[in-house]
């Protein structure tokens, strides 16, 4: 495909799909899904080690660390301070200075807190992190996050894990139109169709997790998502036709043998 690559923090990414690592039924399915998705960026969460079972699987145990970029999230944070604390822990692991800021207060909707997200982004940029904030799809907010030094902006399509798809394609298109950093749609994707829809709007990439992890066949869905990202991107670059109210024949009207 004749296309400029997605670049974040100076890193050229061949795949425009970022994959989350939650909710897979086992490591084998997860790793096969990761492989089929073609992703180069994986997200993780930071949690306490279970001291009663210190040998419990850590997610990284089964992965070839050299093959991926890691984007730990700050899930569990309800304030900017908590997100900054989690980000510092993630960076101390030594595997990545990228951080997905995720600050949710309402357990039912998991909708992000935009004010705390902005505060955390400002602070983490000062501390030298590569910050990819996830928050709601408000175009003004995204300008502010970009000005704060976000490496990419990650508007949600719909609440995390709902699979409701793009609830506000209009807002998303405004963000894309004005953004000077990559736009990655994060959260709410339900199926390949949602991915194509977002990519056709012109977003630079997609971050998804549950849509693959909880699909009946996660490995197949991972593959579907890979193709959807590519199809959507191609369609965007190709430029779609205008929508018309009435039909326009695709067969030439001249030379018909009927009247």
């Amino acid at each position, binding site marked *: 495909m004749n296309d400029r690559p997605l670049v974040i923090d100076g890193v050229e990414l061949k795949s425009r799909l970022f994959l*989350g*690592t*939650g*909710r*897979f039924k086992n490591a084998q399915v*997860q790793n096969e899904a990761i492989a089929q998705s073609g992703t180069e960026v994986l*997200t*993780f*969460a*930071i*949690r*306490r*080690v279970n*001291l009663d079972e*210190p*040998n419990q699987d*850590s*997610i*990284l145990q089964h992965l070839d660390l050299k093959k991926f970029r890691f984007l*730990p*999230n700050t*899930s569990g944070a309800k304030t900017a301070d908590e997100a900054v*604390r989690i980000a*510092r*822990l*993630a960076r*101390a*692991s*030594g*595997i990545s200075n990228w951080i997905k800021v995720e600050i949710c207060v309402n357990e039912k909707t998991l909708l992000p807190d935009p004010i705390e997200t902005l505060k955390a982004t400002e602070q983490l940029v000062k501390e030298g992190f590569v910050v990819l904030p996830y928050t709601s799809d408000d175009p003004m907010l995204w300008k502010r996050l970009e000005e704060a030094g976000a490496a990419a902006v990650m508007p949600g399509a719909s609440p*995390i*894990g709902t699979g409701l798809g793009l609830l506000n394609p209009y807002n998303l298109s405004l963000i894309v139109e004005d953004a000077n950093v990559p736009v990655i749609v994060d*959260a709410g994707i339900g199926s390949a169709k949602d991915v194509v829809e977002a990519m056709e709007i012109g977003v630079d990439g997609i*971050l*998804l*997790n*549950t849509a693959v992890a909880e699909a009946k066949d996660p490995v197949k869905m991972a593959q579907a998502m890979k193709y959807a990202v590519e199809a959507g991107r191609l369609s965007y670059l190709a430029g779609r036709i205008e929508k018309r109210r009435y039909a326009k024949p695709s067969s030439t009207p001249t030379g018909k043998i009927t009247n």
Partner: protein
Amino acid sequence: MTLTVNGQEQELHGICNVSELVSHYRLQDKLVVVEIDGKVIERENWEETQLRDGMTIELVHFVGGG
């Protein structure tokens, strides 16, 4: 010495520094990160960081997440 480790009160004896604490939980070969009283302790400082009664310690790692 009484420490709060991952939210649980732990009575620990014969453990002086962070390195020993990590080994106590058999985590020395894992990708764990240590925080004491809200401050990250980098791995290269584990040996020299002494533990004191009443410290609040978090031992964290990466788990699946989106």
